[in-house]
């Protein structure tokens, strides 16, 4: 079956590629566009490790049709850092030991980014809710929650 052209804005850069008709966005990002931040975990919408932002809203790239993202803005954890300058969320994750094996980290960072974009001063309960679709099997979640709260308190945390 013929591949379909898809053009999207990935982390601020215009990108174009060809995809299989029913290809998940995650496959397009990783295989077609070389962005390896979002991971393949469960493929069922349970683990959250493929979380990306589509037009600013969190979505699971493993369950999103790539063709449905034609012309849209897609952001991944790869777009958080500004050159050598890490995003406050990344700095807070380091400072609070919020990453152990690191597999869940891109999804956690993206979910946290979506939260802070809508709610710059979340409560602990709101942070817990924001990452409730992201599974971590290492940290017990507490360092991640503390890191997100710390990032929210840091200047520049809402940087897009």
């Amino acid at each position, binding site marked *: *079956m013929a591949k*379909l052209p898809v053009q999207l804005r990935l982390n601020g850069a215009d990108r174009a590629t060809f995809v*299989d*008709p*029913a290809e*998940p966005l995650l496959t397009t990002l990783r295989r077609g566009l070389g962005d390896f931040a979002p991971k393949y975990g469960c*493929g*069922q*919408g349970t683990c*959250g490790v493929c*979380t990306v932002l*589509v037009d600013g*809203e*969190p*979505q*699971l790239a*493993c*369950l*999103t*049709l790539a*063709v*449905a993202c034609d012309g849209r803005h897609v952001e991944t954890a790869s777009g958080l850092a500004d050159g050598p300058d890490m995003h406050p969320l990344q700095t807070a994750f380091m400072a609070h030991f919020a990453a152990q094996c690191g597999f869940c980290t891109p999804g956690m960072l993206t*979910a946290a980014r*979506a*939260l802070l974009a809508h709610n710059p001063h979340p409560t602990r309960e709101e942070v*817990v*809710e*924001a*990452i*409730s*679709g*992201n599974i971590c099997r290492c940290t017990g979640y507490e360092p991640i929650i503390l890191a997100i709260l710390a990032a929210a308190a840091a200047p520049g945390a809402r940087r897009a």
Partner: protein
Amino acid sequence: MLDVRTCGSLAEAAGLLSADRQAHLIGGGTLVMRAVNEGRLTEGTLVRVTDPAFRQMNLGGPRIELGAGVTMAMVLARGELAFLHPAARSIGGPAVRTMASLGGNLFAGPPYGDFTVALLALDAQVVLQAGYGGGRAVALEDFLAARARGGQGLVAAIQFARPQSPGDFRFRKISRVRPKGIAVMTLAAHLPRAGGRIAQARIAYGAMAPTPIRARGVERALEGKPLDAVSLQAAAQAALEGCRPATDAIASEWYRREVLPVHLARLLAGDGR
């Protein structure tokens, strides 16, 4: 191999679905793409709908109509639907709620489909469109009873009456994992009152049968009664009527039967636990 067709109108999508048994509507993707990823869906056509009517919300009057493509996040964004927020919030995390549609939830097998339980307690109707013709409304309960057979047409919208008092509507999802887990069971109740007595109660269960079901025994037990200890006991005694729960990784059939009366009593009593 799977193909994708994008339809600009509901009629076009309904026509495609009636003409091709291997065509599957894809809404938010949380059910269909899961089947694709698991290799359960490898042939046919995925039908996308871009018709704005598919995501339209009519909230102005006493009767609410929500397009089947309306997402859980869209429900949560509307204060007029506050009585449905606990049900919408019970679905996945924020990313799932951005994607998951009300129409898709009608097709989620047990123990999923929590939002449908809320809709069933609201006596919702499903607007179905078959082929290029107009839509027809069927009771959600009838739609669910025929769901396994398929071929009912495209779910275009869902309609229900707004509860006269938000406090009359109650929803509980019981799960083992906090803050989010798969349902041991889901319960919803609409308890309108006239002169202090229950009038036309609607109680619905999820994960207690192959599809969400109405608890008709409980509804009969409550009809015309005040919500007091006597009626609550009668409701608990009728709780299991019509239930055919499954044993799965979340809970056994025995456990679901054992705890249902407890959770039902808490729901009816307004116990927030």
